[in-house]
């Protein structure tokens, strides 16, 4: 653990154990993972929006968890900030933009489709298409593809020899 905020091994383990205990006991719904009761908004509609957004934002400390799942301090701070933005009347897009302006597009767990990411989104399809097309072209052009037409007919000598062989083997 080199970084100051990165020391979350123990709290994470505790949260895992706790959530395992909760998930067997909770009668309905998914158990809250990292979101603490103090963070929750009183308005259930706003809270639901906040939860939905925070599931799409990356925790910068753990980097492969959303801030909704992470128990890192920074994830907590950003969850609170996000709720403040929603309370202040931001739309979902505005609230997300607020975070992106500070932390960059890397915070988005779902990569947006935009010019900078076209290669990422469409590259594999384009590669497959190109490979498929060149395979078709290659198979069609390859010598031997139209072999039956290009084989010269047997010469008279060859025909005689063939007849001879066939006669020889047949009883």
């Amino acid at each position, binding site marked *: 653990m*080199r*970084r*100051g*905020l*990165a020391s979350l091994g123990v709290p994470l383990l505790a949260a895992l154990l706790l959530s395992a205990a909760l998930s067997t006991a909770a009668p309905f719904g998914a158990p809250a993972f990292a979101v603490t009761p103090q963070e929750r908004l009183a308005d259930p509609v706003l809270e639901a929006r906040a939860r939905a957004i925070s599931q799409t934002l990356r925790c*910068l*400390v753990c*980097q492969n968890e959303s801030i909704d799942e992470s128990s890192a*301090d*920074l994830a907590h*701070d*950003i969850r609170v*900030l996000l709720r403040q933005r929603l309370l202040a009347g931001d739309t979902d897009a505005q609230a997300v933009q607020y975070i*992106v*302006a*500070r*932390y*960059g*597009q*890397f915070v988005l767990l779902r990569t947006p489709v935009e010019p900078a990411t076209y290669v990422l989104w469409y590259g594999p399809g384009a590669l497959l298409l190109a490979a498929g097309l060149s395979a078709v072209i290659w198979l069609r052009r390859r010598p031997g593809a139209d072999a039956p037409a290009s084989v010269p007919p047997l010469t008279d000598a060859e025909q005689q020899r063939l007849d001879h062989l066939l006669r020889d083997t047949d009883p």
Partner: protein
Amino acid sequence: MRKAFYLLPLLAFLTLITWFGLALRPDHDPEILPSALIDKPAPVFDLATLGGGPNLALSALKGQVVLVNFFASWCAPCRVEHPILMRLAAQDHVALYGIDYKDRPEDAKRILAQLGDPYHAVGLDPDGTTGIDFGVYGVPETYVIDKTGQIRKRFVGPLTEQALQQELLPLLKSLNAS
């Protein structure tokens, strides 16, 4: 021409391998993120200071190249980079300001008294909001702000001698000259 066409897959493969090889080099840390604020105006802040003097405000820093170092008394890697900050402060290349991130002022005061205080002034950011405005995701982080108030570089994690010699000092030289 046709032969060159058949070399294309090999070329693509070599490009990929080079790319992957670069990502695996020992001094590359994939957890270090580029700042979203490079070449953008630094976030506005106006913070009470540790000594209780006038506030540390961005507007007062304009017109000079400054280094803003986010640190905390509870942060172990900050102690690692502390000697480098002390040396930097002594060499007078740049005005070094500290922002005490999510910390108690008395703790910060104690640690600066113990280790030495490299900062011109230290702003207090007890709830980390200025940190979030800068995109801080762990302390220490160090930002280079140019004369026009734009962020030119961010160092994530403790400053190293190598980063100082190869990146920071040349950058400061060119920024001071411009």
